[in-house]
């Protein structure tokens, strides 16, 4: 055994002492994620507050972890949640199963389902980690109206899909999809 062998064992320790620390001061300082970070999902709204989700279940179909459960519903003129015939009556994402792969948002035909940068998805109750539609829906922005209500931006769903963003600008309201980064708590 050499003289410095006992100290040599601390080599890594001493050299690390003078490097920049990797420790994060979470939760006091929240890390800003990359803009396209796969965080908690959000169900977006049309500029008038109607839901973009049409309940097609393609997200559930695409999900490799079977984390999404959807049941479609029938819009009526009296009770309308989305433009067109169909809306998502039940929408649940189970964050115990979700692996954050993002295949669901790629599958979504109406850009209803997107992902926010919110990553604080821990809880002490398994049941609470099954997010239902109320918790996933984007908040109502100014100019939006809580569904059910009639279509305000056009005659049929085509008007929403084709001219929706344009109409939103004219009405001076925000399309919630463009604000998704700002909505997340981490970015603020």
């Amino acid at each position, binding site marked *: 055994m050499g003289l410095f062998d006992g100290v040599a064992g601390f080599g890594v320790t001493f050299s690390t002492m003078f490097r920049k620390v990797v420790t994060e001061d979470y939760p006091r300082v929240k890390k800003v994620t990359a803009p396209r970070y796969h965080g908690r999902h959000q169900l977006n709204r049309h500029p008038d507050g109607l839901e973009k989700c*049409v*309940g*097609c*279940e*393609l997200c*559930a*179909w695409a999900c490799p972890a079977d984390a999404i459960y959807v*049941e*479609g*519903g*029938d819009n009526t003129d009296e009770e309308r949640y989305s433009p*067109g*015939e*169909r809306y998502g*009556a039940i929408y649940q994402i189970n964050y115990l199963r979700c692996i954050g792969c993002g295949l669901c948002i790629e599958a979504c*035909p*109406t850009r209803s389902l997107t992902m926010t940068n919110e990553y604080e998805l821990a809880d002490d109750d398994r049941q609470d980690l099954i997010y239902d539609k109320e918790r996933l829906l984007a908040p109502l922005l100014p100019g939006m109206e809580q569904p059910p209500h009639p279509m305000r931006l056009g005659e049929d769903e085509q008007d929403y899909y084709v001219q929706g963003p344009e109409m939103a600008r004219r009405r001076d309201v925000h399309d919630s999809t463009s604000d998704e980064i700002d909505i997340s708590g981490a970015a603020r």
Partner: protein
Amino acid sequence: MTAASERAPERTTQDEDLPPVPEGHVRLTIDDRIVDAPQGELIIRTCERLGIVVPRFCDHPLLDPAGACRQCLVEVEMNGRPMPKPQASCTMTVADGMVVKTQMTSAVADKAQQGVMELLLINHPLDCPVCDKGGECPLQNQAMSSGRAESRFVEEKRTFAKPLPISDEVLLDRERCVLCQRCTRFSRQIAGDQFIELLERGAHQQIGTEETAFGEGEDFQSYYSGNTIQICPVGALTSASYRFRSRPFDLVSTPGVAEHDSSGASVRRDWRRGAVQRVLAGEDPEVNEEWIDDKTRFAFRYTQAADRITRPLVRGADGALHDASWTEALERAASLLIAARDGLGVSGGPSQTLDDSDATPLTPGEGEEDTEREPKRGVGVLPGGRLTVEDAYAYGKFARLALGTNDVDARARVSSDEELDFLAAHVVGTGPGHVWAPSVTYGALESARTVLCVALEPEEEAPIVLLRLRKAARAGTRVHHLGQWSTPAVVKTGGHLVRAVPGEEPVALDALPDELDAALAAPGAVILVGERAADVPGLYDAVGALANRTGAKVAWVPRRAGERGALDAGLVPGLLPGGGAVADAGARAALASAWGLAGTELPATPGRDLTGILRAAADGELAGLVVGGVELDDLPDPALARAALREADVVVSLEQRHSEVTELADVVLPVAPVIHKSGTFRNWEGRDRRFATTIDPSGGSAGHVGGRAAITLPDCRVLDTLAVEMDVDLFTQTPDVAAAEFTRVAAALTDARSAAHGHLAAARQTPAEERGGEPALRLASWRQLLDGGRLLVDEPELAGTARPPRIRVSPTTATRLGLVEGAMAGLEGPRGALHLPVELADLPDDVVWAPARVPQPDGGVVTLAALGLTHGGPVAVTGGQRDLTIEESPA
């Protein structure tokens, strides 16, 4: 099986020593392969046999070729000369020396198919995410397989208002339609309901009904409309009850058997989260081909109904039913049944504490309960007509061994000794392919030259039989109906009506027109008898005599799914399980030895029939009743049944849902509906239709009803355990075990079965002829398919397509009685009246037709039996009471 055996010999080389072309075949080349095909085969079918998939929409093997969609274009060369344009392979038949090139080998065919696809998609909306067909859509699939990735169409698409309901059940989306005409061809050719048709021309061509075309008129009122939803190759026709329910990938598909009628139709049940979402027709060429009726298709929510019984119930000291454990409920049921069986008197049976306000004293014995009399003794069993063979067998064994009685009758309808005698002679023990007792099959109906329907309205009482009869009639079979008027079924099968005054059918059968008599004597002729032949005394005998006279084969077509199995399992008073006669000591001994009880004497007293059991219970002779799935309104005398249930000391009910019987029961044992158990339905042919459990109730959310775990078991298991509590072993713990034992018992009783007819004929009691004089007006009646039955609950869409109940009379009779078509008339019986709108029909004069069971707007039903009216009996009609038009009528 057929696909493999029919596979034509194929060769890829043009060698000269090919075998000669078989008789009736032609030799052609498809995609460079030489193939022999039967003459007249369509090119598309020959391709299928070679494993070449030609895309198609309009083509359907059971429909006539149409060539409507043009998707199946292939290149064809005849006699060395190519045809100038690609040809539709679904309309062109094969020919000798033909050379066919499909999209696999021909660029021309491939381009043509892509072009057709592009045209079809021009006006097709991008609805796939919201369309119910999405994920199982032939258009979606074939657009991917044989369409172009890019569309060149940038213009506005043609739009229509949608969805357009063309009936309560079927929604039409005209934008999605590719005009393949499968639905119109099905309706015209298979169902015979020409309610939908192609309308308009050019770009505005569309499917529609009289109602959609003119704003008023008939909509798609067909009992078979659901099939059009299933065969629609796009999402143009969708189901109102399945609308947006789920996606194909959500669903677990389990094959099953139709439970609503005796057809034994093959179905596919699609379910998720413990609940059936839809029922589709299964494929079985020998039974239902690919079709089912709407009742089978749409009536499945009864298993999730709010009144489902999920736990055993025992009536407590307070007179109300309380949840109990299986152990407690079975122990209580066993002790009550033992006491009732042995006449020990029932202590503390707090049953029948319900108000007797509507109890009418029916029998003189009632109301004298305190007087000394013979103690009540014995238990009658009324299992109902919807059991699987296994459950029926368990009931039969339970009655004989645990209760020691032959008082068991599954026929919850009008029945007679004459019927039993007829069934023992012609029906019991027969089946398709049985060496000694081959039965009439669907195939035999199709190949018959002549068919005669007696006391059977096939469309209302056996819808799949009607489809086969119509198919036969289209191919030249003469289908005759002994009936009263030209019903839709008569019209659909060729319109040969042998008109008979109700009640006088036996006379009409004895004096059939000579040419019909001769036609029935020709080989292959078939007589179909419905269960309501029991309405008319002498009719079964007349059918038997006609069959003996002409040599025609006879088949019995009951309404309910379990009737045929119950008959073979001995759930009728005169027959033992396996088919031997109760009166036959040899049969009883054979049965006892098959049951491993050699030396034990099985009960020898002939059993009472349903009415006999109910009367005995009402008169205080029987102490107890074990009741299965019986709806009191279906019985010949519902008032008597209510009195019997009230009067009996012990009532044990094995039910799926709360009913009038469970209200009066001491112990209610919940039993599993068909989707939660395996079993076998024996259909009218005598064919065993086995099915596996659709949804296993033991695991996960599958057995939940309204958030509550439903611990229900098959009847055979419940009876087995109940019998164990009574110190008897039935050995019917599972349907499989029960089925195996029943097969063994039936084989052991083969000899006894052939002797049964003689014993029954000897024991037969001819009921006294009650009819005095010639009534002024006679009633003709049978039940309609959709008439508010117990299993049709929670199905508003289905109920919306029920045929409206009407009173039908001939124009002459209407004039005589002062009835006006469309106005209300009253049908009066001894126990009440029923008011319905009048419709004129080609009935014999002085005959009134009305449906036997009429649902009421309040959810209840009125049956003609409850009014004291019977088919063939006298009736009074009052007219012009209320001048309501049809539109305003509450019915």
